[in-house]
C-alpha cells in the first residue's frame, strides 16, 4: 500500500499550545491545522496502521482517574504509532486510593521525566488545573461533562472526510446534552468551522438556556430530522444522573431514538455519528447504527489519526518560531468591577 510521506521535524508555526484542554479556546485556524495534521498522519501511516518515529524518545502518560477503554487504547496506539513510549496510570490501585491529591499524583509522574499527560477525570476543569501546575503538556481526554476535545475533533474529522467542508451544513446533536462532554466539544468545533448546530432532546437534558449561545434548541426530533445533514446521537449517561430526566427508557426511545422510520424522512445522504459506547435501542436502533450512512466505525479509526495529530502538535519539537502557550492562562472573567 502506497502512501504519502509525512515525517515532519518540527511543529508548524501556526500551533503554539503545549496543552489541548478544550476546543472552546481554539481558533478556527488552529482547529483546521489539527485536522489537517491528523489527515496527513492518517495518509502517512496507511490509514493509521504503520509506525513513524517522529516522537521517538518521548514519554506519554495516560493518567486516567475515570475508567475508559476505547479512549485510552486509542491514545496509547496513537502515541506508539508516532514512536513514543506510553505508560498507563489508573486511579485504582494507585496512591489516590491512599488519599493523595490528584495534583501530587501528577507532580510525582512529572518528576519522573515525562513529556505529556493524557488526563481523564470525572470533574470538569481538572486538566486545566493540572496545566496550571505542571510543566509538561496536558491533553484532556474527557473532563466530566465539560469537554472531550479529541472526540469532538474526530467527529468533525469524520464529517469533513465525507463532506469536505463544514460551512453551512446543519448538524443535529441529539440526546443527553446536559451530561455530554462530546456535545460541548462538538458544539465549539462545529460553530467555529461554520456549521449550524441544533441541540435536540427533552428540556431536562437540553436546556433552553443554550439559546443564549445563539444555537438552535429543539425538543422535537421529528421536526429537525429533515433539515439535518449530520446527526450525532449522544448516549444517555445514566451514571451521571441525580434523578431520571425522562419517565422511562421506552418513552425516551419513542421520542428520540433514531430509527428506520425517522431515517426515511431524512435527507438521502444524512450522515449518522455516535460517539460510543452506543446503547442500541435507546438513542439509535440497530438497523440505523449499522446502515450505510453510519460513520460509527470510521469514527474509531479517525480517532487514532486525530490523536496522532494532537500528540504531535503538543509534544513535538518546536521550531524557532514556536510561540508561547496561552491555553492554560487563568481566567480573569467574572469580575464585575
Amino acid at each position, binding site marked *: 500500500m502506497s502512501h504519502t510521506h509525512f515525517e515532519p521535524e518540527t511543529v508548524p508555526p501556526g500551533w503554539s499550545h503545549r496543552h489541548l484542554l478544550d476546543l*472552546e479556546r481554539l481558533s478556527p485556524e488552529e482547529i483546521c491545522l489539527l485536522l489537517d495534521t491528523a489527515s496527513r498522519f492518517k495518509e502517512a501511516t496507511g490509514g493509521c496502521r504503520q509506525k513513524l518515529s517522529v516522537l521517538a524518545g518521548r514519554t506519554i502518560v495516560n493518567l486516567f482517574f475515570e475508567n475508559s477503554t476505547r479512549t485510552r487504547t486509542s491514545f496509547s496506539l496513537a502515541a506508539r504509532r508516532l514512536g513514543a513510549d506510553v505508560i498507563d496510570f489508573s486511579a485504582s490501585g494507585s496512591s489516590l486510593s491512599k488519599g493523595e*491529591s*490528584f*495534583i501530587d499524583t501528577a507532580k510525582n509522574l512529572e518528576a519522573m521525566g515525562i513529556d505529556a499527560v493524557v488526563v481523564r*477525570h*470525572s*470533574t*470538569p*476543569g*481538572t486538566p*486545566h*488545573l493540572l496545566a496550571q501546575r505542571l510543566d509538561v503538556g496536558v491533553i484532556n481526554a474527557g*473532563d*466530566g*461533562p*465539560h*469537554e472531550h476535545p479529541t472526540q469532538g475533533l474526530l467527529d468533525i474529522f469524520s464529517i469533513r472526510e465525507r463532506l469536505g467542508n463544514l460551512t453551512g451544513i446543519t448538524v443535529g446533536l441529539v440526546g443527553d446534552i*446536559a*451530561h455530554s*462532554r462530546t456535545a*460541548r466539544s462538538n458544539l465549539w468545533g462545529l460553530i467555529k468551522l461554520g456549521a449550524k448546530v441544533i441541540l435536540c432532546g427533552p428540556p431536562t437534558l437540553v*436546556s433552553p*438556556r*443554550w439559546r*443564549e*449561545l445563539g444555537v438552535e434548541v429543539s425538543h422535537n426530533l421529528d421536526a429537525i430530522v429533515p433539515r439535518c445533514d449530520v446527526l450525532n446521537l449522544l448516549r444517555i449517561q445514566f451514571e451521571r444522573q*441525580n434523578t431520571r430526566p425522562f419517565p422511562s427508557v421506552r418513552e425516551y426511545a419513542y421520542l428520540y431514538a433514531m430509527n428506520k422510520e425517522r431515517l426515511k424522512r431524512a435527507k438521502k445522504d444524512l450522515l449518522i455519528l455516535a460517539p460510543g459506547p452506543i446503547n442500541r435501542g435507546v438513542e439509535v436502533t440497530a438497523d440505523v447504527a449499522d446502515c450505510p450512512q453510519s460513520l460509527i466505525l470510521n469514527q474509531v479509526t479517525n480517532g487514532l489519526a486525530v490523536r496522532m495529530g494532537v500528540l504531535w502538535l503538543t509534544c513535538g519539537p518546536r521550531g524557532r518560531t514556536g510561540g508561547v502557550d496561552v491555553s492554560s492562562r*487563568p*481566567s480573569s*472573567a*467574572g*469580575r*464585575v*468591577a
Partner: protein
Amino acid sequence: MHQTLLLRGGRVVDPSQGIDRIDDVLVRDGLVVAIGPAETGADEMIDATGLIVAPGLVDMHVHLREPGREEDETIETGTRAAIAGGFTSVACIPNTEPPVDTQATVEFIHQKAMRADTCNVFVVGCVSRNREGKELADIGQLVEAGAVAFSDDGAPVYDAELMRRALEYCSMFDKPILAHEEVLELSRGGVMNEGIVSLLLGLAGMPASAEDVMIGRDTALAESTGGRLHVMHVSTAGGVDLVRMAKARGVRVTAEACPHHFTLTDEALRGFDSNYKMSPPLRTAADVEAIIAGIVDGTIDCIATDHAPHAPEKKMLELDRAPFGIMGLETAVGLSVTRLVATGRIGWPRLIEAMSTLPARILGINRGTLRPGSVADITLIDPECAWQVDVKSFCSKSVNSPFDRWTLRGRAVATIVAGRVKYRLT
C-alpha cells in the same frame, strides 16, 4: 487613674445618631465620652484628619472554626483577621465540631475570645440539637449563656415544622433565626450557579430557585409566627424581591449580603478555581445588580462576610471535592467601599449603617453606636487608600480568597476595641 484617647479631626459617621460631620471623639476608660471639639491633653491622640471615624464594624456572619477545625482557623487567628479588617465585633456561626448547642461550648468560645483579647466575639447557637435538624437545641439555656442568635448555617433548617417551632420559640427571647436558605434537592451535587456558564463548563448547577423557594417558605413562616427571621447571604434577585415583599407586609425579616455576591459573577468559575466556590454560589450580573439595589433601598439591611476559611490542602482539590467557602474579614471594607461607595451607589452613612449599626441592632448587642456612654468600639477608615490585597499577609490562618492581588479602595487603618487600639495599619 483615668485613661483617655482622643480621635482628632476625623469625619465622624454615626448613623445611630444621624451624625456625619468633621469632629473630635473623646474616649475615657473604654467608653465614648463626647463627640465635639476637645482640648488636647489626652493620654493618647490619633490624628484622624481625612479618615472616617465610625462605630466599630460588626460582622454578624463569621466562621471561626474553633472548636474542631483549628487547621482552618482559630478564635485567635480569626479575631486577629477581624481587627485587621476593621471589625470590632464578630458573631461566630455554630457549625463547629462539636456544634455550639450547649452552655459549655458557648463558655469555651467566650474563654478563648477573652484569651485572644482582640475583638468582641458574640456567639450564635444552634437552632437544632447537634445541628441535626431534628429537634430544637436548648435555646433558653444558650440564651442564658450569652448566645445572641440561632442558626444551623452551613445547612438550612430543613424541616418546615422545626423552623416554625424555632421562630415561635425564639420570639420569647426576641432572638433572630439566621437562615441559610437552600432547598437541598434542587442544589444537590451542584458546585456553582445553574446558568449558561455551568452549562458550558459541564458543572452541576445550583439553581437560584433553590434559594428563592426556601426564602419564600421562611418568610411565610416568620409572617405566621411573628418570629424574627434573618436571611443570610442573599445571592439572588428573586431572594431580594421576596425579602422586599415580606418587609412591605410587615414581616419581621432582615437580610444580609456578602461582598463577593455583589462583586463577582459565575463567569469567575471559568478558570475552575475552587476559591470561587461558595454556597450560595456566585450568580449572574443581574443578581449582582439586584443585591446592590437591595442594599441601596435598605431591603438588604447589612453586609456580612460569611468568612469561611479552609486550609489550602482542602481547597486544592477537584472542584466538586473542594469545600464551599471564601474568606472575607480582611477584604470586606475594601470591596464594599470599592463596589458601593466609590461607585456612588451609597454614601458613607449607609455603608456604616450596613456594617455596624444594623448588624448590632439585629443581634441585639450594645454596639454599633458612638453615643456618649457606649462602649468605645471605633473603626478608623481611610476612604481613599488604594491598596493591593496580599493573601500571604493575611492574619487569618487560611488563604482561600480569590481577591489576591486585587487593588481595592478604602481600608481600615485603626481598630479600637473598648477604648484600646487593637490594630493600626503600619
